[in-house]
């Protein structure tokens, strides 16, 4: 058993199912379009692994609404993390940016917003790509416990959690299922 396995006797609770996720992403898509008016100036970048799949779904919904093809990119933040020396070497994800980010609005997409450290790393990674007009953040789940002054612009679901709990996001493209669960903690 790995350390992240749930404490014995406390079953995993499903907090979002497939339809909840679909609805949340549809709402986020509309909020992004509403906030930015012009989808031409928006670049959607997902953070590997699951953020990329969520970003692609948002881009697909945007394409439908806007009637033109919008592709999401991916932005690997591994090399910009502040905890590299604390952990065994991590595999590096893909960075693929569909278009130049200079002067655009970059919308970062991730599955869970927790300490904010991943997003801090992502902001550094974005600044190496160019100088966007603005950077916004969309997350499927905000579970609180921020360690940095970072907040999301678009949130699928605010999920109050204790630090002892684990939030797991599963996406069909990567895990063959679509749901968000909470494991562990004193339920």
């Amino acid at each position, binding site marked *: 058993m790995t350390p992240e396995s749930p404490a014995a006797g406390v079953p995993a609770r499903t907090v979002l199912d497939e339809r909840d996720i679909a609805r949340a992403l549809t709402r986020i898509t509309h909020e992004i379009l509403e906030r930015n008016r012009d989808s031409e100036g928006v670049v959607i970048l997902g953070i590997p692994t699951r953020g990329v799949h969520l970003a692609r779904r948002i881009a697909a919904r945007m394409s439908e609404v806007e009637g033109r093809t919008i592709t999401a990119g991916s932005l690997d933040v591994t*090399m910009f993390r502040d905890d590299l020396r604390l952990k065994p070497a991590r595999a*590096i994800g893909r960075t693929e940016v569909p278009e130049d980010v200079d002067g655009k609005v970059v919308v970062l997409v991730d599955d869970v917003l*927790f300490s904010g450290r991943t997003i801090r790393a992502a902001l550094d990674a974005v600044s190496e790509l160019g100088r966007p007009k603005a950077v916004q953040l969309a997350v499927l789940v905000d579970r609180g416990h921020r360690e940095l002054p970072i907040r999301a612009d678009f949130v699928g679901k605010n999920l109050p959690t204790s630090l002892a709990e684990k939030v797991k996001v599963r996406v069909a493209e990567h895990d063959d299922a679509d749901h968000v669960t909470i494991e562990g903690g004193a339920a």
Partner: protein
Amino acid sequence: MIKHLLSAGDLTRDDATQILDTAEEMLSIAKRPIKKLPTLRGLTVVNLFFEDSTRTRISFEAAAKRLSADVINFSAKGSSASKGEGLKDTALTLEAMGADAVVVRHHASGAPHRLAEAGWTQGVVVNAGDGTHEHPTQALLDAFTMRRHLGDLEGRRVTIVGDVLHSRVARSNALLLHTLGAKVTLVAPPTLLPVGVEQWPVDTSYDLDTALEGADAVMMLRVQRERMNASFFPSAREYSRRYGLDAARMGRLADHAVVMHPGPMNRGMEISADVADSDRSVIVEQVTNGVAVRMAVLYLLLSGRQDHTEETHS
């Protein structure tokens, strides 16, 4: 992942694949406007070169600098080593200065191994060529270059030609390519094959023309005149005629096959100028890939040296 990179033979297939996959991402960084990552900021990489080298040293230097590490270059010429200081005292000095990684090239086979095992330094040791023994990052960059042109190396046929006896590149390549599932054939005059080559995971041949048939990649080795203290072949002209790659021989290769050389080349000796400059030749690309592969090696060895299993979420 291993702690030090001393031999290409220490890498499992998973390790090697992880390095090559990571290098793929590192290569894409070279195409960005800002070719720098903050990953190894605050770490010190020492290039400890007891033997002359241009391309390997600058390649490691470029790799470390692109990852924001501080680089200290130490070459034996014009240093305390020329005053008679040995490997141990040099290593202790570097340790006292706080080297996190030591990239070592030494004329004695096994010197990096000694450096890693003797406890003279806490840093990770990367073998950048030791005597006639090994040169693992060269093998990794060769495998990386082949993989980019040929795809998965499983079942691919690689012919390595020339001065195998004095070549650390050949040994490292044979070990790594075997691990990756490729079939290696060494072609050399009998005098330039090392003792014990029958225990390497390779086939050997004395006839270049037949060994070129069906090869997916052919790697020409430099004739290492500076290491030769006896006559291993009658004349340069005869060597070149029997074991040199010229345009006519290149015509025997399949259309997709690539021509490689670890450099520096002796044009007109093991490889003719028109072959070296032809479309088939990926020799310049090998140099570019070398930086990416060495970035991957430094990243994977240097990040996460303290083994923590604690998990934090995004």
